[in-house]
């Protein structure tokens, strides 16, 4: 089991650890606003408490000591000073925001696709991963985000950054992690039943490891096919919607699926043989089993033939 950095253990009282090479100042601004607020808050509470204590009514017919309806200089001060302060904060936030949004010309490009309910990443050499975003350390990476279904949002708390992921539109996010390790990625735009399971891991590697990763062939042929299929079941995100113990989830269970008779929403029926399973993986909308929603994204191009075979072997093994 790989270790993903805990968001609450490291870092400061309010913020997780900051691994950004460019947004170190973020935490400074956050705590600047925080302490300014605390100072004002203490001031307001102090003044109020003083008024409350000194003006407490002692007998039921006691009148106010004085009636004061306005004080122009005071009112000007308490309008102008906060205005200047918030405009100053605006300026600091604006500068930092422009830094967040700027894209260094030498950035590596990785495509990010959000689907119900997993993240798919496509690297410059065409390699694809699901659930793991692998990036080199101290290198600007430009993420081009899009969705194939509903809105998602791509959030990296340790980098202090997020961007909405919108269907039929490309949005851009730049990151530059300065620390090697594994960090959390969340979906932060509500997207349905498995929204809170739409997690991914940011894997920051040394440059050498990153290039080795790009070149490596994923498929491990030293183990039995069905065993490889079992690994792919979690690695490729099948686990999010298909159970292996017979319980119904968003999609049909894989338990006893092989050679079972399937009834579809259009009234037709078919035996779940290899051909059907391959079709379901590559063209999931072709036949929808009754009682289920047509929500599965296509895995065409995401799995190589060997991987599809391995998954089918695994499904076979799950059938009596």
């Amino acid at each position: 089991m790989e270790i993903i950095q805990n968001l609450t253990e490291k870092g400061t009282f309010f913020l997780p650890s900051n691994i950004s090479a460019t947004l170190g100042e973020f935490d400074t601004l956050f705590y600047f606003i925080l302490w300014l607020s605390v100072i004002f808050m203490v001031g307001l509470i102090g003044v109020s408490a003083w008024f409350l204590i000194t003006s407490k009514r002692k007998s039921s017919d006691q009148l106010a000591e004085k009636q004061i309806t306005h004080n122009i200089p005071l009112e000007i001060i308490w309008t102008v000073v906060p205005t200047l302060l918030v405009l100053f904060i605006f300026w600091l936030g604006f500068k930092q925001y422009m830094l967040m949004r700027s894209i260094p010309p030498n950035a590596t490009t990785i495509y990010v696709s959000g689907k119900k309910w997993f993240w798919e990443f496509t690297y410059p050499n065409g390699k694809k991963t699901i659930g793991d975003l692998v990036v080199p350390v101290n290198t600007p990476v430009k993420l081009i985000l899009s969705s194939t279904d509903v809105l998602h949002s791509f959030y990296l708390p340790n980098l202090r950054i997020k961007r909405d992921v919108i269907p039929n539109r490309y949005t851009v996010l730049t990151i530059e992690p300065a620390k090697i390790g594994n960090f959390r990625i969340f979906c932060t735009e509500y997207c349905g039943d498995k929204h809170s399971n739409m997690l991914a891991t940011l894997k920051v590697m040394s440059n050498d490891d990153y290039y080795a990763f790009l070149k490596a062939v994923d498929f491990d042929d030293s183990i039995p096919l069905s065993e490889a299929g079992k690994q792919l079941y979690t690695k490729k995100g099948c686990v999010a919607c298909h159970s292996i113990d017979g319980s119904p989830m968003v999609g049909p269970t894989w338990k006893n699926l092989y050679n079972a008779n399937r009834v579809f929403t259009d009234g037709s029926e078919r035996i779940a043989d290899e051909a059907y399973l391959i079709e379901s993986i590559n063209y999931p909308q072709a036949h929808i089993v009754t009682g289920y929603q047509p929500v599965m994204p296509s895995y065409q191009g995401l799995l190589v033939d060997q991987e599809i075979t391995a998954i089918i072997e695994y499904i076979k093994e799950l059938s009596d």
Partner: protein
Amino acid sequence: MKNYITEKKGLLSWLFTKDHKRIGIMYLFSVFGAFAVGGFAALLVRLELFTPDQLILTAKQYNQSFTLHGAIMVFLFIIPSIPATLGNFILPLQLGANDVAFPKLNLASFHVYILGALVCILSIFMGGIDTGWTFYTPYSTTTDTAVVTMVVGAFILGFSSILTGVNFIATIHYLRAPGMTWFRMPLFAWSLYATSIIQILATPVLAITLVLLILERMWGIGIFDPAIGGDPVLFQHFFWFYSHPAVYIMILPAMGVISELVTTFSRKNIFGYKAIAMSSIAIAVISFLVWGHHMYTSESELAATLFSILTFLVAIPSGVKIFNWIATLYKGSISFETPFLYFLGFLFLFVIGGFTGIFLGTLSTNIHLHDTYFVVAHFHYVMFGGTLYAFLGGLHYWWPKMFGKMYSEYLAKWAFWLIFIGFNMTFFVQFIMGSKGMPRRYYNYVDEFAIYHQISTVGSWIIAIGFIVMLIYLVKSLRSGKKADKNPWGALTLEWLTDSPPQYHAFSKTPVVTSPPYDYKASSHE
């Protein structure tokens, strides 16, 4: 002597009354009902979140619970809470009038509200709705839940809100007592005036948006769903063009109540009357120009920057009001009865809500905090700590006027402290987990956030106990409360000239106003 409650008997005499006082009371019990349903949904959500994995709800039920909580609390509770209940009952009396300008329209607004509420409730039985109260497309156009029903409910409720707004504006223009110039009008009336402007101008935009959403869902007209050529971000613009001003529909009347409470319980003329009155209007106007601050993570850099500046500017009038209220306390004669405790609670919680708003208005910090629990905590501090506290303060303040009975001050203070402690326990930890990265609307969460969620859930139980205590002493007050005087707090505004409870025609003789609304005397003259 008969009063508005004993004037006529029977359920129908209530359901078809044109009396603003009876309509206000019916609204009051309706919003209590809505609050109970919305609160129950919130308790379910919090209970589910006690552990990182499934506890009592499935993912779908959880999503339906938080949607129900949001939709009911916003459309059925907070928006009508102060204007339709306290506003309906008190505004005409405060102006020295015997009713609102259009009593039949007022009744219609109540009937429309009930109809809208029933349609919303119907959606629960049609399988619920799981989009979140914001109905973001294309999720809302593709999910298989009862979105259309809930949206029709919200659409209908909007008209109730518009009718109340129209009525209040006409009432304030035409039914002020002789001598009550605009600047002799109580600040509660000013705040309702500003609120009504927003209700009339912004609510139609919501109606249009919701109609488009229904058309998109039923006939696929291709405006919001990108799969058929629409733009999902357009929906967000439309939605927040109403829903951000709606935040001020919720908070402005609260600020009006707070102004009344601070003067009465300190026996002080309000500090900066004109500044407070005008800042309400300023907020109403600027509130239309800040909707884009809900979309820093999806809109262009230029738009985000403009909306950030405007957002900071709208904060200033609210800040000015805070300073005015605190200055009003200076050298007053302060009595710490329950309504005043709610004033203090409001001040404390609303200021925290305001300061945390700075983190969210600032461009870069927003990017990190957007859609995390930090936002959830922020708006609960403003809506619960702000609007609900003012509503409860106003309710305890005007309760003797509305029902002619006092309540147990002892139990009322217990309820106040339970709710105050429970509230801070529930929501302050949400700031911390939010800024540490906990996203909102999560059914499961990573283990490291468990401790924060557990504190928060226990806090929600303490709030619930506080409200149960409140229910007990309010019911007891209705059954056997001590009879209230005309003016138990020694306030100066006109509603306190009427009997407690008022007669059907509250003023047999129209009062004549000769002084500003908070013209309290001082013990020392200089």
